[in-house]
């Protein structure tokens, strides 16, 4: 399975939740599969999906799923210690770990070689860290949502992208409809 397959399998699980999605191919693929006002697409700024997700989870009570990548987490590795030390039980960080920089031509990342982001997350003090096969990702997210415990999920999948259009929606619209969705019913 490649990331697009994982995202497709996740749609029934995440569609109604607040989702912060990583820059590039992940956001484009999610947008083409299931555009929702509850999706925040990053159109720039490599590495900050997990930080935006944590800030969002700390600021309000609804569940938040940040969909990040291994290359992106490696560029902001301090995020795992910030997450561990600022527990927010409505927060799930899903790292789709395909061992490559998918949006730039599938160059290998160190997570595809010797570095285990699962071990790094644990060493940073994250209490609930789950490493799973790509096919088990939707179940892992379902379980984490039901548990109501902050969880880092590392989904090991194959490298590769599906050709989908870039997102042309105005970024301020993306942000404002997302803010409204976060505030809805509160």
């Amino acid at each position, binding site marked *: 399975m490649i990331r697009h397959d994982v995202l497709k399998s996740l749609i029934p699980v995440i569609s109604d939740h607040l989702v912060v999605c990583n820059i590039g191919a992940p956001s484009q693929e999610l947008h083409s599969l299931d555009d929702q006002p509850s999706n925040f697409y990053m159109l720039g700024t490599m590495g900050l999906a997990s930080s935006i997700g944590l*800030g969002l989870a700390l600021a309000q009570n609804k569940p938040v799923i940040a969909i990040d990548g291994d290359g992106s987490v490696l560029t902001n590795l*301090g995020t795992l210690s910030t997450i561990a030390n600022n527990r927010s039980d409505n927060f799930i960080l899903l790292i789709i770990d395909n061992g490559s920089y998918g949006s730039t031509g599938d160059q290998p990342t160190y997570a595809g070689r010797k570095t285990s982001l699962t071990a790094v997350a644990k060493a940073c003090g994250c209490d609930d860290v789950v490493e799973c096969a790509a096919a088990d990702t939707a179940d892992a997210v379902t379980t984490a949502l039901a548990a109501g415990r902050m969880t880092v999920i590392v989904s090991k999948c194959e490298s590769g992208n599906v050709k989908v259009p870039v997102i042309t929606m105005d970024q301020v619209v993306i942000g404002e409809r997302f803010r409204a969705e976060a*505030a809805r019913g509160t």
Partner: protein
Amino acid sequence: MAKDIDRRIVSDLVENGVDFVTSVPCKQLAGVLEVLEDTQAIRHVPSNKEDEGMGLCAGAYLGGGKPVIIMQNTALGVVVNTLATLIQFYHMPLPMLISYRGEVGEPVACQVEMALHTKAILAQLNIPTYHFHTPVDADELPGILRHTAMCRKPVAILTDASFWSAPE
């Protein structure tokens, strides 16, 4: 040991609805950070690096919060991309309380190097910039916080050594 000016700044943040602060420390900001730790109305989430901190602030804003980042001017060398492609691009309000190291009174020569670039970087990014040089300048803080929320931009508040070392 926190001083009156530290307490005044944090009190202005609280009175203007700020409920989320991230920081990377600086010696000049130690008093403010100390007061923050005892301020129930504000959640303080220290970050490892200032671009990470701006990500946290962006998330807090999307969740209905009112964030502020506290950082040193040297960090402007770290956050240019995040300011342009996240905070400015998505029209997010973000007051940045910045210790302006490298100005008169600075004991560390290396700090002068980024002081030379500080206002130029902020000007290049079209970031509204205010410079607190004496304690009376801090009277503007509530107005700056309201202005930031109104225009939904990152706004820089530079606080130099003279400001922090002024007798109480």
